[in-house]
Every structure is written in C-alpha cells, then in structure tokens.
C-alpha cells in the first residue's frame, strides 16, 4: 500500500473518531453520557462491570446502599473524602459528574448482585463477636447495630457484608487515625479503641459473610 493511501486511511479513521458513539463514551465531562455507560466504560476498569471488584484495592460496589454511594461520590467530587484510596483514584474521576449521573451510578451498582468473596484471613469467632456484640469492655458497640443484622447496610450506613477485608481494615484505620472522612466522624469514636487484631478479625468476618 502506498503512503498516500495509508494517509487517507488514517484520515478516514480520524473521521470515524469524530463521530464517536456517545453510548460508548469514556468522557467524564459530558452530562449526556449515561450513568450506565460510565459504569461500563470507566468504573468497570477497577470495580468490574457489576461492581464485584477483583482487587481488594478497590471496594465492592455491588449491592451497596444507594444513599451511601451517592454520598461518597459527592464527597469525592467536593474533596471532603480525602483518604488515599479516595483522592488518588476518585477525586479526578468524579470532578465533573452531574448529580444525575451520580444518582444513576448509585442505582446501577446498588442493583447489581453481590457475589460472595473467598474468606479473607481466618474469619474466626473473634470477628463475629465484634460484629454481633462489639467490645463491651471498651464501650465499642456492635457493627450490626447500625449496619444491619446481616451487615447489609441501612441507608447512609454502608453495606459491610461481602466487602474486601483489606479495604475494610484500612478504612477502619482511616477513621481511627485521621480526619480524612469527616462524614464518618462517628466511626472515629466507635473505632478509636480497636486493636489491629480487632480490625483484621472483624474485616475477615465481614468479607466472608454471605451476601443477603
């Protein structure tokens, strides 16, 4: 093939590019792009197409409570959630999302079925005890009091059951040691006296909890 023909082919490619299909757009600054398109084209890269992320670096979004997902995306967008997992990945991606897109993303992932994860660590009775009874001698209340009998979440309080243990333990440390998640300030008080072992125990238990 002669060079001019190839050049024409490249120009044709550019022409096609100019008429890109909005249904498969990865543009994060275009209100016309639907939430489902963004979920599949962008979010799926880390969280998987159905919110069941493969890597524990990225939280499971499937089956999460919609109100919690909305509040987190808005917190990322206004930079009020500043933990490393948040600002490194999510500040930029969320900066120009519209409220409508955020609502749509929350609905999309909340409606996806959560798939059980393999047990992370050893989900022993210690973790179960913290979830169900808290740590009474330190006045730490049980998780299920706010996050639901089955850890399924209640409105603004996120689902914990079926979440990656590594993510849960790290977030407990964020609450405990920093003010990077002001919306979860109540967790700073609750998690204050948790030991490293407490955190990994309860996180392992929650990861292994059957999604309900």
């Amino acid at each position, binding site marked *: *093939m002669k*060079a*001019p023909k*190839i*050049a024409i*082919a*490249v120009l044709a*490619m*550019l022409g*096609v*590019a*100019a008429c*890109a*299909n*909005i249904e*498969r*757009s*990865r*543009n*994060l*600054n*275009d209100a016309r792009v639907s939430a489902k398109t963004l979920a*599949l*084209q*962008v979010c*799926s*890269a*880390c969280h998987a*197409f*159905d919110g069941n992320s*493969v*890597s*524990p*670096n990225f939280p499971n979004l499937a089956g999460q409570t919609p109100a919690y997902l909305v509040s987190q995306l808005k917190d990322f967008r206004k930079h009020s959630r500043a933990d*490393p*997992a948040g*600002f*490194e*990945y999510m*500040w*930029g*991606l969320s*900066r*120009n999302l519209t409220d409508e897109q955020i609502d749509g993303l929350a609905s999309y992932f909340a409606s996806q079925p959560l798939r059980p994860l393999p047990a992370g660590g050893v989900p022993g009775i210690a973790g179960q005890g913290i979830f169900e009874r808290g740590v009474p001698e330190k006045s730490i209340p049980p998780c299920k009091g706010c996050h639901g009998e089955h850890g399924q979440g209640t409105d603004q309080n996120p689902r914990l059951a079926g979440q990656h243990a*590594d993510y849960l333990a*790290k977030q407990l440390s964020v609450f405990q040691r920093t003010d990077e998640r002001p919306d979860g300030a109540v967790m700073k008080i609750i998690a204050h006296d948790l030991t490293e072992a407490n955190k990994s125990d309860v996180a392992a238990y929650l990861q292994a909890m059957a999604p309900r």
Partner: protein
Amino acid sequence: MRCFPWRLTTSIGKYCLSAALAWPVFGIFHVEQAHALPAFARQTGQNCVSCHAGGQFPELTPYGRIFKLTAYTIGERTIPISVMGVASVAKVNDTSKSDSPAADFQKNGSLLFATGSLFIAGKVTNNMGVFSQITYDNYAYQSAGPDGQPADFRGHSNADNIDIRYADRFIDGNHDLIVGVSLNNNPSISDVWNSAAAWMQYVPVPSPTSHQFIDGTAPYPGFGTGGNIAGITTYAYWNRALYAEIGTYRTANQAFSFLSAGINDGNTTKLRGSNNPYWRLALSHEWGAHNAMMGVSGMVAHVFDGGSDVSDPDNLGRVRNIGFDAQYQYLLDPHTITAQFAFMRQKQFYSANTLAAAEPPYFLADGITPVAAVNASDTTNILRAKVSYIFQAKYGGSLSIFNKTGTTNTLNQTSGFDSNGQITSTDPEGTGIASTRVNGSLTGNPATRGWTGEVFWTPVQYVRVGAQFTAYSKYNGASSNYDGLGRNARDNNTLFLYLWAAY
C-alpha cells in the same frame, strides 16, 4: 541507543569501522525514556499510581492498561502537554584500559543535564488519543574540531516514541471486548505489559560514552528494526484475558515522516515495502491483588543496510524476531511487587553487499591461518528477568539479570585485527592496529552477561532519584580480555545516579 540494535550489529562490524570513525559526527546515541505523564494525570485527575505500578514508570497497572487500550480516552480533554528532564552521573569501574579515556569515557563522573522530553499526549475524541514524545538529547553528537578530533557536544531533538490510536470498547454483563488501531513508530510501543521490548527498559540513557555501560545500554530483548519506523497495528483485548495484535511496518517517510522527524535520512531505518509484519498474543489473568500475563510476539522485517542505496536490492537484509515474555504484579497498598521475564531470539540475514564486503580472505597474525568466513546469518538470544519491590509508592528497589548469547561471526570481530584485516598480537603498541578498544570484540561473539541492582526514591510523584549499579561477568564474548587489548568485562561495571522530574 536502543532504537537501532540491528544497525549497531552490522555497522560497527570491523569492515565499516574505519568509515564510522572517519564520520565527523560522533556518538549518535538515541534516548529511551521513562514515561509517566502528568498530562494524562490531569486528564483523569488521578494520581500516577492509578496507572503506574507503585508509581514505577512506565510499568502499567491493570487500570493503566485499560486506559491505554481504550486509546487514552478516559477523562476529559485538557492541555495535552508534559515535559520531563533527566540529570545524571555515570562512573565506569576502570577507565585506564583505553587508548583514549577522554573519548571512551567522556564526562565520566560528571553531573549532566542529560535529556529532556516534550510530550503531546491525551484524549483527542471519545475514541481517539495520542501519546507522542519529542526528545532532546543534550549530548547527541560532537562537532569536529579543527584537528578533526571530536570537539564540543551539541544537542539535538527528534521524534521519540509515538502512538496514535483509535479504540472502542463493547462491554456488557457477558463480554468485554476492546478493539483498536494504533499508528506508531516502534514495534511493541503499542503494548501494555512492561515485559514488551519497547517498555521493559525504564531508565533514561544519556549519550556520553561514560554512560555506555549503564543498564539502559546493556542487552534487552528488542525487535531488530528498532524504532522510528511507521507501523499500523490492530488489536483486540477480550474479557481482560486474551490479547491479540497484528500489524505491519514500513519506512517512516512521505506522509509518515513525522514518525522519524529530526533524525537525518542516513540514520533512519529503511524497510522494503509495507510487508514487515509484527504480531503479538498474550493471555492475562487477574485474581485478588495479583495479575499475570504470558505472551509471545514476533516480527519479520526487510531492512536495508544503514545509509545504503535502497534502490539496490543487494543492500537488503532481513531480520526475524520471536519472543516470549511474562509479567506478574502484586498491587496492594502499601506494597508493590512486580516481576518481568522476557526472552527474544533474533535471526539476522545479512545483505549480499555486506557479505561481499567481508569476502576478502583474512589471516591470523601468523599470516597463514585463514580467519573463518563470515556467516550469512547470525542468531542472538537475549534473556532479561527483573523483580521490583516498592513501598508506599515511594521507596523502591529492583534486581535484574541479563544474558545475551549468539553465534560467533568474523563479521563482528572489531578488535584484534590490524588495518589490513589481519589479527595481530594483543599488544596495543603493535604497528597498524585498527582494533577497537573498550567497545571491541576479539571473539566475534556477542555473549554479554550481568546484573543490575537499583534503589530509588520518589519523594513526590513527579520526581524520582535513583542509584543503579550494573555489573558484567561477560562482555562481547569473554570475561577477560574481551577486546584483545586487556580489557575485562568487570572493568565496565558502572554506577549510575539520576534525577528524573516531569510536569
């Protein structure tokens, strides 16, 4: 210069040596760069660690691979410009075994502003994006002084790696298919794994000869054509499990001359026609915080001898590559562990004119024993393996080994010969010796083996400071006296310190 390994193996053959030395421009080494692009970070608003494993540029994370395969289109259009610069010092173990240490080890131990790059990179449309790099080499060549000796260094800019691509992604609950087309100037620059030939080497390679033994110049698996050619490849990535790419390359001239801009015509790689195919297959898998890939790649290219008349078919050689590579990553904050393995076999078929030029009989110094005839083709095998660990994306270290083996060929003997093409004694004071010290090869065998260790610190994500040590146990076919004039492989051991910054 990693761009033209094929040209190096032939043009620095002993028969071309005198011509090379007579050339008034010395040391034209091209530069391979690290690629971390603040322009991309601005486009997505994300940190470098999102796309680069442990912030260790240019190695991509699974997300970084999707970002690249979808044509750099995630995010929003911004000003698509970045710059980067490298300052470095290199110190070679022994500079005394040289006829001219000042020439063989220029700037040894001196701090240099080595190279700088301008990147134009980013999203163009919803389906199209660009990664392009223009590199300035502050030590690109030396002007000729009044006595014909090399004088001042001069800087020079040229097109470096360029990848312009169009992609689409078809994804639903059952399938995830990314398809795309890339117009690029370097075989495997379009690849997304760091064990690919164009990417495994991650440190800059400044030009002065004091830097000629740093890791970046040690053997790396690569394609025989090198870069600055024009190729179109198409690719598909299915369910993040199977990747296939196929394309073909041609000379970067006419409409494609921008892909070799700034490189003078005599130094660009000339290919015959557009039938120089490149292909790549890879299997990848992600589980938990781990991901791994195994792949194969290959290329067949019809390449004219450097600077030769391309209308003469007798100047046409051929080079065939086949490679196997694998990569593993464990990415879970604060730990990053990665490993790469790459093996490349290259078979080089020489042009009729190269073989004819090497035809006259040569004898050993006794004047009786004939030197073996040159091979019509040569085979080299290069193996690289590397493991890295990075803590908090800040403190890192890596260890790599390299082993190059290959056929022995009189054509590659560049040392131990006199000006009449006879092998002489190893006495550098002997008359008429045209041997090359330091770079020369007495054996005609390319075997080179060694290891590199590196520690680095990334205090902020756009700055990296590194110390690297490269040790050789074999060089140009021998552990000791590889140049026939007493230089040993370990004399080339080099300490390399660098400061890299980008914005």
